[in-house]
């Protein structure tokens, strides 16, 4: 099977959907001509292939970029717009949260807004807290939006294709660190279902729920624990909203133990939602307290030792798992 980084997988999904459906266009800052000339990045080459009508470089105007998507979707196109980095979601958030997410409801179900907002996220680049701030918990708190956060190139391709075909607004969050790690990706028509979690590794002792880049941390920790005969089941949510409770609950019913791992800061992070669902619906199966392994409640710092301190790693996850075994 072809080996692609997640950036290339996103590129392939965009390319295939643009070929399939003339209503699909992409817009954003540098989605056409970019300050990077790197084939590993999602939109590289699309301008050349599809031309300036369907690949639109925009001014530095996040509200207009998101509004463009809302209006074009209302008028029947299928926009895929990019908000360069997650912290700039704030600037687009009125258009996405008060408009994309609500206007269908406000129309009594008459208008539809089939749009995708792609955002790059993730710490680890030394760019600091105005470039790295994982806000998936914000978006997952907004009825009317779907939230996808893939962890593998194959999922990224399959989920983005599904997102583009979805008639609802989908926020699609890509951890930049994943752009550069190749993985197998099915050629051609490969769709992954939005709203389905994926057990990336089965195990009977503890359930680790995670998503996006942290999946790698979870899998590495799991293989290390295996040496000691500890079997961690790794549940990759893939979609935060709608949340696949069933897969999470099935796993916790089996293991009786829950650890949630995410890069976002701890307080108010989406781990809380996962914990609440389990505490509501799998309480009787629980054998141990919850553990959350997350970024601390600080902005992402720049200095390498500080940034490493911020990002959750295998050691922290393994320690947390040991605590509840």
């Amino acid at each position, binding site marked *: 099977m072809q080996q692609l980084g997640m950036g290339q997988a996103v590129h392939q999904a965009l390319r295939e959907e643009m070929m399939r459906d003339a209503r699909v*266009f992409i817009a954003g800052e540098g989605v056409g001509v970019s300050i990077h000339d790197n084939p590993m990045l999602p939109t590289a080459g699309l301008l050349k292939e599809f031309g300036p*009508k369907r690949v*639109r470089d*925009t*001014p530095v*105007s996040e*509200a*207009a970029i*998101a*509004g*463009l*998507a*809302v*209006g*074009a*979707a*209302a*008028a*029947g*196109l299928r*926009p895929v717009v990019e908000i360069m980095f997650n912290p700039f979601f704030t600037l687009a958030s*009125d*258009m996405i949260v*008060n*408009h994309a997410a609500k*206007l*269908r*409801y*406000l*129309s*009594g*179900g*008459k*208008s*539809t807004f089939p749009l995708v907002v792609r955002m790059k996220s993730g710490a680890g680049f030394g760019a600091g807290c105005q470039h790295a701030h994982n806000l998936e918990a914000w978006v997952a708190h907004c*009825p*009317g939006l*779907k939230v996808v956060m893939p962890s593998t190139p194959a999922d990224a391709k399959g989920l983005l294709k599904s997102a583009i075909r*979805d*008639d*609802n607004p989908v926020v699609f969050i890509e951890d930049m660190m994943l752009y550069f790690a190749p993985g197998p990706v099915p050629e051609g028509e490969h769709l992954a279902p939005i709203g389905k979690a994926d057990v990336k590794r089965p195990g009977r002792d503890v359930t680790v729920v995670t998503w996006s880049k942290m999946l790698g941390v979870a899998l590495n920790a799991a293989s290390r624990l295996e040496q000691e005969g500890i079997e961690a089941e790794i549940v990759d949510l893939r979609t935060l909203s709608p949340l696949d409770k069933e897969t999470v609950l099935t796993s916790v019913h089996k293991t009786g133990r829950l650890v949630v791992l995410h890069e976002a800061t701890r307080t108010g992070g989406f781990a809380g939602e996962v914990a609440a669902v389990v505490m509501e619906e799998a309480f009787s199966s629980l054998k141990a307290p919850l553990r959350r392994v997350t970024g601390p409640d600080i902005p992402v710092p720049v200095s390498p030792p500080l940034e490493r301190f911020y990002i959750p790693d295998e050691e922290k996850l393994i320690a947390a798992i040991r605590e509840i075994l």
Partner: protein
Amino acid sequence: MQVSKEKQIEMLRSMLLSRRFEEELTELCKVQGKIPGMMILCTGQEAVGSGVCAALAPEDVVISNHRSHNHLLAKGAEPRALMAEIYGKRTGCNKGKSGTLHLAVPEVNAPCTTTVVGGGLPIAVGVAFAQQYRQEKSVTVCLFGDGAADEGSFHEALNLASLWRLPVIFVCENNLYAGAQRYEEHTAVQSMADRAVAYAMPGEVVDGNDVVAVYEATLRARELAVAGGGPTLIECKTYRCRGHGESDPQHYQPKDEIAAWQEKCPIPRLRDEVLARGLITTEELREMEAAINAIVEDAVRFAEESPYPRPEEALEDVLVQ
């Protein structure tokens, strides 16, 4: 340019319908528990929506704001469906989910109305982008207030629309107030139309109480837009004769200012002229008014008699399943 008799009568009728519709609301919203939420009316500003929409084709799109009744009625919205929605009834155009503030009427190409001040501008740009993308010969009109022109969204939207020469018409309904702030208390710029310069876009000031002038300015902007000439910013200078909403005591609006502007009401202005020029007889006018009365009364009756949605219906229409 000579505006046809039919067009003038159409605009008079449009303004009269809007006025009657809102006169009903003025009374209805005083009745405790009859109408949910605030009641925001445009009494005295009817020439803007009625003049703009008279210049549009059915396929043209209108994106309106919190002061939308006239805009939507002028675009052809069904009075029954609007009134029922304003009541929060299940038969309303949005099943009671939107109420008076965010009336969406896709049937007449008003796919969404936003009460987030300035929110309509980037959305209108997106709709116009789709029209250009599909090479349609239609345009999108965004109606917004003078206060909205201070929001960042105004700036981003106009810059992008001009850059891409999108077929959009930005109509700033300058009614001299943004909430309780007088125009000069919220911006230093003499005229909102001056802001067109900042985007290399044509800007035009028109008498917002002269429906014919509004109509003609919109026609010109529309011609330019469909010809690929890009957007226009039209500022319609008018006045908010009533409060921001019906609960507003208007303590900050000088009485004589209100009185002076009531004198300039766009409806008698056109009515007297078409009567004087013999484009309509007193008899025909009375008939028109009677017909409009009947329509509005029917709309109120329909709203009154319609059922409320069942509580669980609140769960519907969030996502396309």
